[in-house]
């Protein structure tokens, strides 16, 4: 028995989406020509690429056959949910857009207090009212030619967030984009599409939350495109805590102009099969990006973080720190590609992947890829895979701390390095609470940190 789809199976699985695309095209008949031709081109590309197989270098460790074999359905309208259950995922003191199975839910959203120069709408609303605004913006940086799921998203994108920050605009409170999978009896697919344009010297904090209201299978395939104008500062966070039966394939596409600063933190604790493609293009001198991540996996969870940073111009910096905690039979991939273009002198690129394996069956593949075509650069990468330090455990125990608590304390300390960097308090608190609940004797840890 083989669990890997062949190329042919991958292609035929793709054609199964053709019928739905026909429905979708009919539903979106009024769209401007640039959009429908973009969607058709993207869908054709998806069919041509098919579902990836492990024969392909970028998917070598990531077997998406369970997604290719699945039958998923887009939500037709807003599902019924318990308001209380939805609210549990709210960050207080934030602006908020809420989506249920990928569909914008205005009654849970909160955009009443946006300052001037900040425009936030649902993608669906923009499609209905001013689709022309998307021309030359939508799918500009997230290229679908080489990525089947970006192609699929481009074909089916119908909801998400559109954020425009005027020159110098400042959004002080975070904007939370909350994507919730519901207890729908039908297995859902959603293609959240977020477009952020942070104008010159603007500043915002964006939090993407992906969660499930029930332990159901689903597939979310979000694409987030963020453009940072000169001198803009964007704090981006993504918390993926969906059901352990969920599939999640996400692309984060960052495009940075001169002297802009982007901090992106990706926390992944949910999902059965998760693939994150994170691409940053530093295309203006002095641009800087920080891409950090933490994943905490167990059972048979699988996560692939596929990073690519393009240093296109001189004097840019990129810093990547990813930490993973894997228990039981969990598996993770870290693929970190750094590309330094000819002429991108004085590039400073650091990449570090650190993993803690808590069981003998847990597995990590870490693969740094440096392609450097400039000669005056500083590029470093490092990767570690290790276990808990037994000497440290004994030391803690010898002071009266129980074995479970000692282990949990050390695991927490390993994660804290990333958790402490989460600036929005509500998010940091949420991740801390997750760890206290996940770790044995978490109450001792809670008290000790």
């Amino acid at each position: 028995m083989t669990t890997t789809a062949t190329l042919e199976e991958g292609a035929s699985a793709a054609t199964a989406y053709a019928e739905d695309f026909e429905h979708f095209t009919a539903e979106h008949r009024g769209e401007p020509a640039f959009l429908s031709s973009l969607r058709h081109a993207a869908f054709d590309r998806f069919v041509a690429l098919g579902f990836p197989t492990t024969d392909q270098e970028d998917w070598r460790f990531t077997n998406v056959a369970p997604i290719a074999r699945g039958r998923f359905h887009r939500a037709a309208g807003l599902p019924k949910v318990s308001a209380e259950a939805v609210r549990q995922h709210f960050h207080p003191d934030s602006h908020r857009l809420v989506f249920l199975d990928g569909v914008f839910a205005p009654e849970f959203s909160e955009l009443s207090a946006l300052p001037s120069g900040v425009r936030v709408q649902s993608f669906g609303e923009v499609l209905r009212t001013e689709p022309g605004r998307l021309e030359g913006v939508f799918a500009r940086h997230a290229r679908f030619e080489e990525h089947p799921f970006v192609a699929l998203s481009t074909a089916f994108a119908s909801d998400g967030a559109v954020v425009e920050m005027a020159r110098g605009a400042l959004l002080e409170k975070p904007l939370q984009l909350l994507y919730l999978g519901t207890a729908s009896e039908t297995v859902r697919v959603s293609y959240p599409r977020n477009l952020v344009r942070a104008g010159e010297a603007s500043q915002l904090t964006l939090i993407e939350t992906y969660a499930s209201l029930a332990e159901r299978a689903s597939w979310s395939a979000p694409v987030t495109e963020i453009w940072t104008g000169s001198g803009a500062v964007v704090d981006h966070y993504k918390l993926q805590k969906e059901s352990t039966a969920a599939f999640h394939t996400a692309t984060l596409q960052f495009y940075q102009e001169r002297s802009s600063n982007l901090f992106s933190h990706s926390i992944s604790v949910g999902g059965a099969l998760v693939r994150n493609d994170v691409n940053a293009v530093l295309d203006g001198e002095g641009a800087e990006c920080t891409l950090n991540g933490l994943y905490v996996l167990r059972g048979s969870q699988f996560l692939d973080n596929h990073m690519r940073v393009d240093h296109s111009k001189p004097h840019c910096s990129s810093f990547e720190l990813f930490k993973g905690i894997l228990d039981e039979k969990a598996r993770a991939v870290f693929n970190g590609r750094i590309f330094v273009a000819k002429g991108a002198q004085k590039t400073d690129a650091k990449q570090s992947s650190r993993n803690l394996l808590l069981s003998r069956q847990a597995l990590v593949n870490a693969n740094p890829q440096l392609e450097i075509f400039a000669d005056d650069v500083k590029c470093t990468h490092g990767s570690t895979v290790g276990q808990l330090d037994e000497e440290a455990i004994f030391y803690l125990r010898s002071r009266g701390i129980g074995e479970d608590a000692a282990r949990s304390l050390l695991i927490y300390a390993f994660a804290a390095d990333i958790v402490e960097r989460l600036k929005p308090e509500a998010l940091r608190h949420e991740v801390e609470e997750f760890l206290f609940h996940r770790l044995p004797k978490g109450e001792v840890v809670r008290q000790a940190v």
Partner: protein
Amino acid sequence: MLEIRDLKVSIDDKAILKGIDLTIRPGEVHAIMGPNGSGKSTLAQVMAGKEDYQVTDGSIRFLGQDLTELDPEDRAREGLFLAFQYPVEIPGVSNTYFLKAALNAIRKHRGLPEIDAVDFLSLVRQKMKLVKMDEALLHRPVNEGFSGGEKKRNEIFHMAVLEPRLAVLDETDSGLDIDALKIVADGVNALRSPDRSFLVITHYQRLLNFIVPDFVHVLLNGRIVRSGGKELALELEEKGYSWLEEEVAASATA
């Protein structure tokens, strides 16, 4: 307080301790001296419950309990403390918070309520003075980036906060300059009381000028070959270990 009878310990089938007898009563300070490789640190680690060692024979009774039956944390909760020869650096775990968790684990075991943050802070401040510790070290991760002397002082600080019944100091003096040595010794002396005992393991007599022991034992090749009062330490200082080694060899062949 502590009764060790005919204790034999191996690591990887190699015998390290070959029959130790030692009795420590409440309030007493015992010193164990011996050359490198005599088994001093093994004794300390076995008492604290390090799993790498196998107790092949004999017994360790602490406050009437068989110590070898207890997990390391339960030994600590019963009142045993080991000041490590090489304190471990633990990145990411704050020195203070860790100590609070340890203290509360011990208090809980004894049926006492958890200490609140305010009381804990004033306790910590008071104990810090004892070892003249820089307050900055409280907020740093446990031992991370501490100098050798700071690590040793931190051990004594932990001991002062946890208030054990029996403290084992494993070469706490090694690598310390005379000023640091005095600080450590002052810290220990301040904690001496009629119901608290100490086992001071050292290579050098120097520490014993400052922590004056009631008994001195010489450990050679896994056995206590001589016990006496504090004057035994001075004799060792003068003559070295070789005269005892020769005596032991002579009596073995006799």
